[in-house]
């Protein structure tokens, strides 16, 4: 699918770099990252492990600041913490909160009363396949269910931008496929702009409009590919020749940059 040409640029990252001090020596983690995401776009960031993908998301979310370069969110450069939805690799559910209260957490920190937060969550709980689970505690849920709760916690907030850090990494392949299809539905329904970090090329191709390849450390935006598959995406597309050839492209450039 070609991106809607009317939609504006939502996120603009240019010449971003980040170093960390590890064991007394400074190490360049990200170098000259450039990324542009359109409103309601779906961008995947793919790269070898250790290329700083999670660091990039931490910086976009505002948990960390870059050493140099700029991040504009809807044309504004400023504090980002709390304004961007961020779902980390682990589900990070609080064990003392029920499904309902875990999902309400973000709304509560935004200042909603407990009751209003719960009502808001309850109105979405069906969409996230969690009805009937409201009063359960995380320990009694499967990995896929826990992930759904984490999704709901992130998505129920009014933030239009959502960062996803390998959200399906811990799931078995069947659940994974189900969740990918479901994520596309949610994305469409809730009108979000998504940046997804993954090292699964199939996943990136299947979900995104654009794939941004990062090279091995220091991570540099090496390569951007737009995925011209029609939407809605369906699973049989994974075996289409254009999908396979695109996958070939991505994999070969990925190999090129791993070394």
């Amino acid at each position: 699918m070609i991106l809607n040409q009317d939609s504006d640029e939502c996120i603009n990252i240019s010449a971003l770099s980040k170093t960390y001090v590890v064991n007394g020596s400074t190490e360049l983690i990200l170098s000259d990252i450039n990324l542009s995401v359109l409103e309601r776009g779906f961008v995947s960031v793919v790269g070898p492990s250790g290329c700083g993908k999670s660091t990039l998301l931490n910086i976009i979310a505002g948990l960390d600041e870059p050493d140099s370069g700029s991040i504009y969110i809807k044309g504004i450069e400023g504090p980002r913490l709390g304004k961007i939805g961020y779902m980390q690799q682990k589900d990070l559910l609080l064990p003392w909160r029920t499904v309902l209260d875990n999902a309400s957490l973000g709304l509560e920190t935004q200042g909603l009363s407990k009751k209003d937060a719960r009502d808001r969550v309850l109105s979405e709980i069906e969409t996230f396949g969690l009805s009937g689970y409201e009063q359960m505690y995380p320990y009694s849920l499967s990995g896929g269910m826990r992930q759904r709760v984490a999704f709901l916690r992130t998505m129920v907030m009014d933030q239009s931008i959502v960062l996803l850090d390998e959200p399906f990494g811990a799931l078995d392949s069947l659940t994974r496929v189900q969740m990918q299809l479901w994520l596309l539905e949610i994305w469409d329904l809730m009108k979000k702009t998504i940046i997804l970090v993954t090292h699964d090329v199939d996943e990136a191709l299947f979900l995104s409009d654009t794939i941004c390849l990062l090279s091995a450390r220091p991570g540099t935006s090496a390569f951007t590919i737009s995925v011209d598959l029609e939407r809605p995406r369906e699973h049989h597309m994974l075996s289409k020749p254009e999908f396979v050839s695109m996958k070939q492209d991505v994999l070969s450039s990925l190999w090129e940059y791993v070394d």
Partner: protein
Amino acid sequence: MPVLIILGLVLVWEVCVRTMSIPAWQLPPPSSIILELILSIELLLEHTVVTLLEIVVGFAISLLIGLVLSAGIAYSSLLQRSIYPIVISSQTVPIIAIAPLLLIWVGYGLAPKVIIVAIICFYPIVVNTVDGLKAIDPDMVNMLRALGATKFQVFRKLQIPTALPFIFSGIKISISVSVIAAVIGEWVGASAGLGYLIIYSQPLFLTSRVFAAILILAVMGVSLFVLAVVAERLSMPWYFNEKRASSIRHL
């Protein structure tokens, strides 16, 4: 099971005392201790109330100050560096040695015993609570920060619940030693309480009464501990359900 063991030991005790004809002032048989308990119940209860009051008030003060101070220590690195070492080293001072001083300063009433109980309970509560408040998962903190949480919201929604199991460990240790603390306080100088009753009855060779008082102290200690365990279960049902669920999974 422990009940059976204790019953067995009591039976052996009774039989030994009777067959070996040990004088009652030296070691009374359990039956005469029970008899003493029934006959002097009014006197014993009167002193029990005093000791229980010392424990409850001392423990409550300790818990209150301990929790507030722990929050301060976990929150501010200045307090962590200045106050925390003092709290830890204070434990090395023998409390029994301080007790006579307390008598000089605050008299022979309830106050010195309450203070001794509070001092003894203080350390386990503070050390456990500080550890608990610091036992947070940094990823969880980042998750909350990304949700726009303030430092205070992180404290309330993450640190306190994380610390809760630790706090209860501290409380259970404290409550176990609080009975000893109260008795020590009464030995040093008192006019009421079960510890006082023991010290008072011993030179009169009212050995059955000494044993009756010890029995009540033991029951008191166990009951307070059970109370703490019940409170723990009620305030963190998720914690025990989770432990049970994971132990089933590991079977």
